């Protein structure tokens, strides 16, 4: 294995501002905390215009509801119904939201709005106060909803004597 010597060595300190990945077990969640109440007010100011007053969705994704729909003909995938890990919510909001000003929120603000969204989904109480430890401890409803990739999964057809490809419209939801 040849080493070329290109690139600058960097320390953990050098890269602190970029080192924002939060793992599903909460690893790398920062210090700080926030409450549902703080989050509600931030959400109303900075999020509701795109996601609806109660997370019902608008130009931005629907953020609450959908429990029990995943196996239905119209699955509604939200934080509450679909997301397997709560720390991912912190990770995503911090890096990507609000859409118009990503990485503009403080860690406290991200904890707060994360708490509010979890509350909207009935996953934390009205008076919840979230920090690294309590966020990582939340067990999401769909935590066991994911399975590995089993492909190739579709029965193979071949030769010219096989069942024909139908060209008729297929019944399709929505």
């Amino acid at each position: 294995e040849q080493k070329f010597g290109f690139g600058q060595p960097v320390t953990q300190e050098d890269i602190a501002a970029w080192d924002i990945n939060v793992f599903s077990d909460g690893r790398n969640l920062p210090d700080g905390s926030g409450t549902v109440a703080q989050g509600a007010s931030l959400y109303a100011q900075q999020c509701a215009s795109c996601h609806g007053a109660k997370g019902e969705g608008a130009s931005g994704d629907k953020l609450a509801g959908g429990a029990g729909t995943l196996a239905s003909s119209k699955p509604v995938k939200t934080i509450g119904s679909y997301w397997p890990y709560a720390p991912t919510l912190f990770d995503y909001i911090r890096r990507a939201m609000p859409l118009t000003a990503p990485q503009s929120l403080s860690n406290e603000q991200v904890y707060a709005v994360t708490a509010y969204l979890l509350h909207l989904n009935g996953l934390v109480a009205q008076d919840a106060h979230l920090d690294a430890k309590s966020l990582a401890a939340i067990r999401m409803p769909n935590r066991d909803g994911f399975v590995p990739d089993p492909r190739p999964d579709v029965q193979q057809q071949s030769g010219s004597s096989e069942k024909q490809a139908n060209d008729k419209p297929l019944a399709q939801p929505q």
Partner: protein
Amino acid sequence: ATAQTGATIKEAAAATDKALTIPPWSKQPGALVGSRPYGKPSEFESGVIRHLRKTDKQYFSSSTRTPLQELDGIITPNGLFYERHHNGIPDINPVEHRLVVHGLVDNALSFTLNDIRRFPSQSRIYFLECSGNPGYAVYGKTAAEVNGLVSCAEWTGVSLKTILQEAGLKPEAKWVIAEGADGAGMTRSIPLEKCLDDAMLVYSQNGERLRPEQGYPLRLLLPGFEGNMSIKWLRRLQVADQPVHSREETSKYTDILPDGKAREFTFVMEAKSIITSPSGGQQVDGKGFHEIRGIAWSGKGRISKVEISLDEGKTWQPAQLQTPVLSKALTRFRFPWEWNGEPVVIQSRATDETGYTQPTLESLVAVRGVNNTYHNNAITPWRIASDGKVTHARA
């Protein structure tokens, strides 16, 4: 002939007036040499563009499609390479850009673009395809609407393996988490095995530097994997013992099944093909000889066979494959065909070197249902009516 150009080509004159006149462009100088230091297509091709879906709610996170039915060969010109952005197209100054490699490595490193370009380079022709191409809303009117989230280019860059070796992998390393410098901070976890196989960090596409829409100045390229994982505007690679489970690999890019469970880490794009000529929205101009043309590709390697059916899938005949057939690249296929003027359904199916054959939508839906969202590689049937009009046979 099959209408397949941006300009609407009509027979210019009736058969009774065949006397050729000297056209104006033969009687005057053209535009001065040097007047187009960076060229663009003819004005007569101004309709050949990437289209948005008019129904999208916003255009921060959206996609545009390659107009497959207008193109020939296997190279997609950079100006028409499909797009999928999650918070628009950043305009990155390459001088300011850095790639950081850290985590389970011996030496965390920060690279400038010059550093990256100084490593041994390689050039490869690979396709990229969005895993949502086409979702299960399979009624697109044109080949672009059906399958236009796929393109193919010659990429140049450095093997990701070289970069990871430079930093030095720790024994616990299992995944590499890649992150973009755009406003979406797009984040995906890649199995280390892929990173040490054919993964690249690319800075050039079809000879020139990447376009902003394809990740300028640096993009991860994972041949054969769903396009979303080939992180654009790449700023960071964190080597880890586990996937990060980002929003893009949990809430999105997971495949929901009829029982409500969802498949995760469904990376590979399975074999697929589509007839681009004649295809939806085109007009077959009369009986007689027509060449059926299209593209095939597989995330698992080379295309070994493309077959055509002209009888609603009852029988299949092999098409010609344009050589060289390259691994994980588009492969152009062609099939000579005499149309007798009667209504017909034409369709293609691809087989790759692993022996896997592109399925019908029916067989795919039988296993995955219709809410799967991603990785629909079903056969697309086109119906040709007796007047030559081509439409999606499922519409």
